[in-house]
């Protein structure tokens, strides 16, 4: 989808756990080709919002609508590369853009529509190797049939090779070459964070949700990770929604920022606008600081 088009629309989203309101009437719109940051104090509902988008939580009310290009979602039908002779992607108005409400879908269906994510506390398949983790990112693009997948020779093998090439590109991009065959559980924290980003990238998503990709890292590692995220954004042309605490990082890399506090949106705009918003300053520094 061309940059600047609306990609994701969150409308009046409310999420309650019993008597606790985690999100209250949240509105947010993400444009394609942007890096959109969600910030807010601890417990503001940032991760809950991401979980609602990726289908892990079912919101109490409200909607999340994703727009996607129908051609991009040839997922699950075995086309790793665009079919020969298919017309080159032309102007926006000739694209078959569709809308889909994500709130009624299970997480695996959301993933199939091109939404990939990482988690705040790494959720990798720790007994599997880096390569296997990443190949699982290709799962949605592969043939679904159990019986043909048992036949290693022939189509299944060719398919495997095509997907492996895409995974190798991701491995190169994130400089994970040295770890291909290592079980993920044995790797250092920073590397695991990168593998998780890589697995999400392997889905070739149109929207990437990153939940604190730099949590627990030192300044140098953060810088590296920011670099990787920018590279991914530029090279893969993927739109990114990220949660981050480090304000410097947010100011550096994001185009747009949404601020949450106690489940409500208290600010939305460019990083500069948000920084100058008195409500945001108050939420971060306490009442009185804004004066």
């Amino acid at each position: 989808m061309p940059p600047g088009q609306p990609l994701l629309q969150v409308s009046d989203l409310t999420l309650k756990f019993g008597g606790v309101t985690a999100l209250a009437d949240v509105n947010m719109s993400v444009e394609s080709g942007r890096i959109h940051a969600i910030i807010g104090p601890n417990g503001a509902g940032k991760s809950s919002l991401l979980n609602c988008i990726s289908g892990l939580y079912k919101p109490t009310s409200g909607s999340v609508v994703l727009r996607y290009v129908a051609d991009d979602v040839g997922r699950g039908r075995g086309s790793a590369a665009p079919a020969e002779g298919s017309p080159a992607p032309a102007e926006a108005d000739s694209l078959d853009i569709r809308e889909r409400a994500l709130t009624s879908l299970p997480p695996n269906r959301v993933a199939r529509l091109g939404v990939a994510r990482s988690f705040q506390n790494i959720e990798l398949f720790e007994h599997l190797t880096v390569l296997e983790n990443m190949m699982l990112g290709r799962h949605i693009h592969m043939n679904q049939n159990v019986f043909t997948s048992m036949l290693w020779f022939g189509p299944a093998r060719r398919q495997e090779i095509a997907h492996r090439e895409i995974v190798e590109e991701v491995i190169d991009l994130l400089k994970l070459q040295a770890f291909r065959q290592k079980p993920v559980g044995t790797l250092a924290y920073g590397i695991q964070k990168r593998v998780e980003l890589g697995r999400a990238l392997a889905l070739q998503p149109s929207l990437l949700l990153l939940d604190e990709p730099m949590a627990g890292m030192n300044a140098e590692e953060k810088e590296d990770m920011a670099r990787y995220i920018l590279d991914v954004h530029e090279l893969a042309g993927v739109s990114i929604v990220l949660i981050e605490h480090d304000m410097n990082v947010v100011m550096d890399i994001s185009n747009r920022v949404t601020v949450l506090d106690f489940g409500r949106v208290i600010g939305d705009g460019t990083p500069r606008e948000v920084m100058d918003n008195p409500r945001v300053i108050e939420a971060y520094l306490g009442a009185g600081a804004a004066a």
Partner: protein
Amino acid sequence: MSTFVTLLVIGLSEGAILALAALGFVLIFKATGVINFAQGEFLLIGAYSFYTAFVIMQLPIVLALLVGVLVAVIVGVVVERFILRPMVGQSHISIIMVTIGLASVLSAIVQMFYGTQPRAMPPILPRGSVSILGGSVPVNRLWAIVICAVVLGLLTWFFQKSRHGVAMRAVADDQQAAMTVGISVRRVFALSWALAAISALIAGVTLADVTAVEMNIVNFGLLVFPVVIMGGLDSVPGTIVGGLTIGLVSQFVSGYMDPGLAEIVPYIVLVLVLLVRPYGVFGEKRIERV
């Protein structure tokens, strides 16, 4: 020496059948976390459904096997969908009680239709015996070893290398992450129950051929517990080694010491393993941090 060779081959064949039955148990446990006490009954259902197709309906053997596979898949998927899925999120003990209940129901169904008398089935595997190193070895036992080895090899390959096998391991590791890369956890659950039922079918039919089509198959099925405890509950190689060990130990005890003792020796091994290495010989040491 001659007794040794005979016992060795019989022990290996029982062990291989046991490993196959236990692998089904391990598949379910790994992917879904359910401890299935009805695995022995799956063997029973497998043997009787094949017997029905092959002997009662007089179908050719290949068709009879297909019928068996079909029944196994249906039973596996139905049990997952209607009995265990409603139990998602319940405590382990409740789920175990449900599978114990399931075991009673399945064996009662078989008894209802077929009674408790052993049924005669024409031999499928070649009969007769050959002499190896002076010991007389039944040929069908050798074939049983070959069949189980091939099926075990295929299942191991499927689990380690094939895409759906890797997806099953992924679900075993982290269900949430599996969902977010687009794996349908429900499909993986259904697949693992179906595969467990198929491996039980093959084990059940092979066992029925070298022994008889009878309710005793359930008692044999109970031996999967010493096997999987020894193997560490979730290790495929551990299960194979565990199966062979239990098969050999009980045959040697039966041949050299006392057939009565052979009945309980697998459970003695079970207790010993639990005392010395509670996480199994091949199992991963689980450390729970509080």
